[in-house]
């Protein structure tokens, strides 16, 4: 039940066009309790869900690949334009560039998160099924899932990591910026928290931590608790207050 709630929260916090691409966890869970459900139907449904993940994932990945390249060009052009001077005139452009880069990185990470959530959901639903029906569906099915395109997040992950290093290299914080300190971050973060990607990311982190805190059905297949490097440091200044009605379409 906890996962059901978590995934629901995740979906709510997710980017709008993603919302119908997630695993229909609740429906599937409810279906399991029904006697007329057969294994073949259940498997069929899960396959259909995976199709959905695959299609969405691969398409997003394609977009990311394209955009990845475009951003690289943009940075290069901008870098050439600015030269080496710490010129004020380009600050806005640089800022814009930074923002786009961070957001792009965020979206990629969220896609990896998407993949993970759906995988986890599948694993859990299979476990429920086996438990309820005395089946042995879980293990072979999960093996299959491991080979699905949506599960293979290596490329997106790699691109994201590239940006992590690039960000530090290309847009280092100047000393002046660093001196401003973090007192402004509280203000900025609460404002930034209204921003979709950011909210989603934080929600994902919180969810992950919650989900791995412990469960009554802990087994060898369960994950250990999350070990965030100093999670409070990162998450404390972030106060995602009761949902701000964000004007998503």
């Amino acid at each position, binding site marked *: 039940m906890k996962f059901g709630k978590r995934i629901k929260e995740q979906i709510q916090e997710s980017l709008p066009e993603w919302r119908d691409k997630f695993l229909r966890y609740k429906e599937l869970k409810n279906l399991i309790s029904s006697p007329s459900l057969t294994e073949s139907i259940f498997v069929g449904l899960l396959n259909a869900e995976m199709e959905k993940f695959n299609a969405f994932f691969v398409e997003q990945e394609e977009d990311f690949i394209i955009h990845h390249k475009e951003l690289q060009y943009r940075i290069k052009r901008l870098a050439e334009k600015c030269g080496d001077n710490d010129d004020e005139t380009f600050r806005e452009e640089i800022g814009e560039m930074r923002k786009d880069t961070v957001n792009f990185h965020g979206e990629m990470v969220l896609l990896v998160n998407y993949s993970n959530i759906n995988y986890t959901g599948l694993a859990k639903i299979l476990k429920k099924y086996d438990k309820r029906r005395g089946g042995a569906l879980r293990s072979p099915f999960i093996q299959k899932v491991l080979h699905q395109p949506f599960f293979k997040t290596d490329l997106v992950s790699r691109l994201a990591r590239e940006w992590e290093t690039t960000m530090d290299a290309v847009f280092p914080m100047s000393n002046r910026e660093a001196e401003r300190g973090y007192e402004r971050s509280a203000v900025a973060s609460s404002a930034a928290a209204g921003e979709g990607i950011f909210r989603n990311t934080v929600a994902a982190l919180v969810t992950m931590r919650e989900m791995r805190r412990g469960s009554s059905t802990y087994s060898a297949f369960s994950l250990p608790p999350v070990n965030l490097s100093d999670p409070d440091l990162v998450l404390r200044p972030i106060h995602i207050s009761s949902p701000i009605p964000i*004007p998503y379409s």
Partner: protein
Amino acid sequence: MTMEARPVQRSDSRELSNLARTSSIPSTPNPSSSSDAFMRSENTQFMSKPLGQQTYHLLSSSNGGAVGHICSSSSSGFSTNLHYSSIVSHEKQHYASGSSSNAALSNDSSWCSDSLHGGFLDFPENHQASEIEDGVIGAGFDDIQKRNDWHEWADHLITDEDPLLSTNWNDLLLETSSNSDSKDQKPLQVPPQQPQIVQQQPSPSVSVELRPVGTTSSNSNNVKARMRWTPELHEAFVEAVNSLGGSERATPKGVLKLMKVDGLTIYHVKSHLQKYRTARYRPEPSETGSSEKKLTPLEHITSLDLKGGMGITEALRLQMEVQKQLHEQLEIQRNLQLRIEEQGKYLQMMFEKQNSGIGKGTASTSDSPSKSEHGDKKTTDSKELTPEETRKCQEPESPQPKRPKTDN
């Protein structure tokens, strides 16, 4: 035998495979045994007909560097010049080891064949032509399949007197907003003729020189194929586009010719080109319409903060930090999950070996059913199975450390 004619059968491994197929694979299981066999023992088929369009290929272009995954319904120009890369052979191993269960049917290969079979069946009388206009080739079609199948099942199941199931199916079918989980999912509709179309076409034989009627159709939209792009392939694409005068002037056909990637279809190129053009002329981080809305708060901050200019940077740093954290945690989690599954698989194998050797009675259900404590996850006092695990001998959870020792 059409899908409708064959009701949802139960308790039969064959139906399992059939149903699993029909759920995600629009094609008919035709008399051809190769098709059935393919479905059920992908590795065999895979190996013997490696270049069939139903496989998941890695192709190398003549450029040498660009590689993409193509799951193609075999365009007319499909040659036999498909190269397996190391990744494919890696996948092959997985196939060989993985898909023995009837229940676990579609892997990469049948994922391919989903779109694949659909593709062949998308002939001029195809009713989903409009669906195909979507950027995502297979998705629209698969969506319909999905909806259609759910409806099929619902039809069958609602006749059972199971209010719970009926209710659920109704929810799913009607997509009422009361079901908040699925609120955003598209309503399930049923194009009734569609399954018949599916049934008419013989399922394509698993051969390379496939000359299905569908692919000779000049309407490349009909070729259902899902392509997985890579940065290298994209680079080759960009080069081709540039040499043709830029994204506005380049044509899909020209690009396709220049790229010289086997298995790449004009449809792939066309949709990719479309995305490319959009990305260039609307350089938003997100290609979605909500990007404007999403960025508005930050834009406000930017304008407010231009004087100071630091707040926004801090916000971005924080955002980046959080994103990095999530990324890292996801990596860790994924690795753990993989290890857990590997371990489980290994254990199960050992278990089965033991069982087959000794006989059923020794199914090792431990009789110390204590669950591990919530907090106490680092210990390995773990020759114990939790109660629920003892119930299922088939899935021994562990005679070993309950979870992989990890340093997180």
